[in-house]
């Protein structure tokens, strides 16, 4: 355990400072290129640059390569390549609005490194009840998991700071769960995700200076999914992600089809006179607003509170994994 402390500290520092240092020049670069979109929830005409994906993927790759220098295991390579493919898919979508099916289908390719490197265990472990062997089904699960986690994080990226803030909570919950399950190597491999999100949150929190874009959100989501698979903590990972999963399910059930959110017609958000959020086509936000209009900051905090709640349930689940009835 002691020999893992130095790689953990070094990789976390590299992850945090790569994003922390790389994002301001990226913001300037994007401003020069005029790659900005209107922030829909601001009273004034505020333009915010996007995508922040390049600094996020830089943080992930450098920190994971540092870890690869310490332990040469295929799990790290699988995570790096999966995250990078997701970044490329997201970047294509950032530059050119693709159809609703593009991201889910293309993200299947991002799941192939996990299969290629054989960095998975086809036993699915449940709390209290033990494991179930599903060799054929598990391959299907891997193919679905990366598109689901990628798109789920992408779909919760609706307000300033929410995607990165949510990812900080979910990924640290997953890391704690991995430590509880004594899967120390994967726990350390998962830490950079939280630190990358934390550094990006500094620029993404309200009022945002940069949006992650599809490239940033898909990278974070795909890396999260890859960690869940290589760490054999799929169920715990799903529990920590529950608020975002609710959002995706409600969105899909209301649209009745897979659709790119930028292609939805009509006003995405309705505001009160004092510019509080009144109604929105985002389903989780809509449920939060059943009690009445709230400011963007208040809604963001409510989503993060839900993330903390589901993160706590995920950690409790990790303890329950060690108990069999």
């Amino acid at each position, binding site marked *: 355990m002691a020999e893992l402390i130095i790689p953990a500290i070094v990789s976390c520092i590299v992850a945090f400072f790569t994003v922390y240092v790389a994002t301001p020049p990226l913001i300037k670069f994007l401003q020069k290129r005029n790659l900005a979109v209107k922030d829909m929830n601001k009273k004034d005409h505020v333009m915010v640059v996007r995508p922040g994906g390049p600094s996020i993927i830089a943080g992930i790759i450098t920190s994971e390569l540092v870890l690869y220098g310490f332990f040469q295991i295929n799990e790290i390579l699988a995570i790096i390549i999966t995250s990078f493919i997701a970044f490329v898919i997201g970047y294509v979508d950032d530059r050119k609005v693709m159809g609703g099916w593009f991201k889910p289908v293309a993200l299947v390719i991002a799941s192939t490194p996990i299969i290629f490197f054989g960095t998975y265990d086809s036993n699915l472990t449940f709390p209290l009840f033990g494991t179930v062997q599903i060799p054929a089904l598990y391959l299907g699960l891997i193919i679905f998991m990366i598109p689901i986690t990628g798109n789920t994080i992408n779909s919760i990226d609706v307000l300033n700071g929410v995607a990165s803030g949510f990812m900080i909570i979910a990924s640290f919950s997953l890391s704690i769960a991995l430590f509880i399950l004594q899967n120390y190597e994967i726990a350390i491999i998962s830490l950079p995700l939280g630190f990358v999100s934390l550094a990006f949150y500094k620029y993404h929190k309200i009022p945002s200076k940069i949006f992650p874009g599809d490239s940033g959100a898909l990278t974070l989501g795909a890396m999260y999914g890859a960690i869940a698979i290589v760490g054999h903590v799929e169920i715990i990972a799903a529990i920590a992600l*529950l608020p975002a999963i609710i959002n995706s399910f409600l969105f899909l059930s209301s649209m009745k089809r897979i659709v790119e959110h930028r292609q939805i017609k009509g006003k995405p958000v309705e505001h009160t006179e004092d510019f509080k959020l009144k109604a929105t086509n985002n389903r989780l936000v809509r449920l939060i607003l059943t009690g009445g209009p709230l400011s963007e900051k208040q809604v963001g905090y409510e989503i993060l509170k839900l993330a903390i709640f*589901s993160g706590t349930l995920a950690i409790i689940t990790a303890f329950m994994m060690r108990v069999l009835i």
Partner: protein
Amino acid sequence: MKIGLFGFLFVMWILILAGGGILVTILGPFSISGYGDFDLLLTSILKAIIAIILVIVWILILSKLKNWIFKKEIQS
């Protein structure tokens, strides 16, 4: 928001735990024999179908629950 969404999350968690129990105790040991080389394939297909049905039931229960919780919240 009160406790509506937190309650909803909690019920989702309980349903995941219960679903896990069903998968491990019923679906796990389940196998088909008598079809030679196709045994594994048929078993996998049947397990996949049952798993998909479970997920659909899970979504239906949650959908009803969501409507119930939020109707109650709007009324109060």
